[in-house]
């Protein structure tokens, strides 16, 4: 937790420098959080192109809001609140069908390159890809707010309190979201043990 506090202070300090007109501090924040935001959005919308577009919008909004920034919460809470809001809006607007196509195109290329390198056989790659696809489908089948909670809990290692702030709900509500989501995932993925 001490590290998290130090990170909080550092991010907030950088953002305050951005507020004062320091572009280099924005570059540092971007470098530090770019991958986490894009990966979170990718797992939310299942499209790399859409995830990067939404992540750009999220960072753009951070930059736009620099003048009004006050370090009342963790920088990452604010950043993920923006990113989650964009992802939920995108999913709500029903744009995910088009994104699905680009996801499939992008994902099918990566393991194929690895298989071609000779590190794993085509059969091994197909088995692995099939398992990943099952995971992706299981997560995608979750309601959007449960999916967001699981992704922040699992991949960003956020505490319940921080997820609650991102999702604008109580810690108790976050626990309910996570318990229901993991229950669904256990039912669908337990056989993969």
């Amino acid at each position, binding site marked *: 937790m001490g590290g998290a506090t130090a990170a909080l202070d550092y991010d907030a300090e950088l953002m305050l420098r951005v507020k004062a007109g320091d572009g280099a501090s924005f570059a540092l924040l971007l470098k530090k959080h770019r991958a986490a935001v894009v990966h979170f959005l990718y797992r939310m919308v299942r499209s790399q192109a859409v995830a990067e577009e939404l992540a750009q919008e999220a960072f753009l909004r951070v930059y736009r809001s620099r003048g009004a920034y006050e370090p009342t919460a963790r920088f990452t809470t604010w950043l993920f609140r923006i990113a989650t809001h964009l992802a939920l809006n995108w999913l709500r607007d029903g744009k995910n069908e088009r994104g699905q196509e680009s996801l499939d195109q992008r994902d099918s290329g990566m393991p194929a390159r690895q298989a071609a390198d000779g590190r794993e056989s085509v059969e091994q790659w197909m088995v692995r890809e099939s398992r990943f696809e099952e995971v992706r489908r299981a997560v995608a089948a979750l309601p959007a707010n449960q999916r967001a909670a699981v992704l922040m809990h699992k991949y960003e290692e956020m505490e319940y309190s921080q997820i609650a702030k991102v999702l604008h709900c109580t810690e108790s509500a976050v*626990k309910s979201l996570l318990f229901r989501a993991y229950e669904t995932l256990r039912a669908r993925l337990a056989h*993969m043990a």
Partner: protein
Amino acid sequence: MSHNGCREETELLLEYAAGGLDAAGRVAVERHMEECGRCRDFVAGQRAVEAALDGWEAPPVSADFDRRLYARIEREASWLNWLSWPLSPEVIRRGLPVVAAAGLVLAAFLVMNCSEPAPLAPPAAARQVEPLGPDQVETALQDMEMLREFSGLVRPDPAM
């Protein structure tokens, strides 16, 4: 560790499956699981989920992500600069005297035009009266005198 299926217990098992408990917590859960098949199954299932999720890697971020973002910021900044140009301090500092002078000239023009009253239109009757010259007046008086004389001739004065 009790076993009443409450939320706290589930939360503890989730933390244990994710490897998030301290040593004392781990020992307590493991001791409980030795006797509880239901919790063992729960943890096994949750660990399977954790392992499956661990394997889901996200693709790397595009190399030109930052360049595209900065291009958007640049576009937005230039657009905002263009919009806010009339309000910029430099423009205000240089343009204010010119605008003030132009405003004064305009105000003076308006005041001058408004202070001179527009001529009133004369009444219709007045417009029909034409001024008479002295000769015409004299002729008219002579005509009246002549008429009076004629009247005296036609109706003689009873006093006479």
